[in-house]
């Protein structure tokens, strides 16, 4: 677009002779900054008049109201704490950021400088390890050929405060199948504290029928009597009915059945 054409359009505008298309073109030139509306002669008088319009001034009442508001805001700012102000985002955001950073630093420092586990924790760990060691020792001793060794193994369980299922299982196995009566009796004695356990109790009842030693049979009958296990009556009756059972044993077991039933 040459200057000549622009000047031509400006002249036409000032004369009020622009067509609709030229008006649009003229506006595009204004938008592009090629024509300054402030320099247009046709609009200059109205523009100048607009500039010289004097609007009234606000009354003193506005001053009073403004300074009252300012004083109130100052007082509120000075009077300190207000929940709404505390949580207003521009002021709350840095507080929140600071608190978050402090928390993260606190956790990190706490993690790095945390003391080694206390004596109690260490003691518990050692005790636990010792119990596991005992269990292993007891289970390996039960495999020994020597009855004395196996007795030692059974006695080891008495030093244990809490035994695992593996240990009770090994004791029941010993009770059922160890060839030595003393070992079997010791195993039965060792199982007494765990007779409250349903699975141990069931195994003890089953064990009655497997015993051929009168001593173990009587010990089991006494135990059943002690723990008041009525389900054992059937097994005990089988012993009575057996021809292999000595009469003294039968009498003793009959007494136990009487107590139980």
């Amino acid at each position: 677009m040459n200057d000549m054409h622009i000047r031509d359009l400006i002249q036409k505008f000032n004369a009020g002779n622009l067509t609709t298309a030229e008006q649009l073109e003229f506006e595009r030139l204004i938008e592009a900054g090629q024509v300054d509306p402030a320099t247009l002669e046709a609009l200059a008088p109205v523009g100048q008049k607009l500039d010289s319009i004097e609007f009234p001034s606000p009354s003193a009442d506005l001053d009073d109201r403004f300074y009252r508001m300012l004083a109130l805001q100052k007082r509120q700012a000075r009077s300190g704490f207000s929940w709404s102000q505390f949580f207003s985002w521009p002021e709350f955001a840095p507080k929140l950021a600071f608190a978050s950073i402090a928390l993260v630093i606190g956790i990190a420092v706490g993690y790095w400088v945390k003391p080694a586990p206390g004596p109690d924790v260490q003691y518990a760990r050692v005790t636990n390890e010792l119990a596991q060691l005992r269990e292993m020792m007891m289970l390996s001793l039960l495999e020994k050929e020597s009855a004395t060794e196996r007795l030692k193994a059974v006695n080891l369980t008495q030093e244990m405060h809490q035994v695992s299922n593996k240990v009770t299982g090994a004791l029941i196995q010993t009770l059922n199948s160890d060839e030595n009566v003393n070992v079997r009796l010791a195993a039965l004695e060792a199982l007494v504290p765990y007779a409250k356990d349903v699975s141990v109790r069931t195994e003890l009842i089953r064990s009655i029928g497997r015993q051929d030693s009168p001593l173990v049979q009587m010990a089991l009958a006494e135990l059943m009597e002690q723990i008041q296990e009525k389900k054992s009556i059937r097994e005990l009756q089988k012993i009575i009915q057996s021809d292999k059972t000595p009469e003294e044993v039968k009498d003793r077991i009959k007494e136990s059945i009487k107590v139980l039933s």
Partner: protein
Amino acid sequence: MLKVKDGDIDKLGLLFERYKKPLFGFFYGMTRDPELCEDLVQNVFFRILKYRYLFRGEGDFKTWMFHIARNVNHDHFRKNKWKNKESLDSWEERLGTDENRATQFHHDEELDMLTLAMERLPEDKREILLLSKFQDKKYKEIGEILGCTEGAVKVKVFRALQELKEVYQQLEKHL
């Protein structure tokens, strides 16, 4: 303003003293109601104080202030749409006919007539002319207030001046 933002709210008094008149003039040009204008000016300064943290200090304070003023004006008229319609009707009644109105003016006839012509303009055109007047024709800043380009502002001012001229000429014919 940056001091106000940092908590020295006493300094808002200085800004108030400097800008209360142009701000009042802007609202007066828009509403012709001095009492309402004072309310709106007060409202603008209240918002400045309340939202002072939003002033980033990158631009001109006056531009930011007029941006708020424009919002205050729009909010007011949105809230009082019904009332304003009524008040405009009564205002027209008070104005009477153009002829009667024109004969009332003995002094500064032209300026009074231009004021009357301004009242006849649509609100958006009146607003752009007032912003242009009170922002000293800084079209770039006006563009920031209105959310448009400098070129678009120039075109808007141009069209508004054209319409103002036409209305003014029509009023002149009745003299």
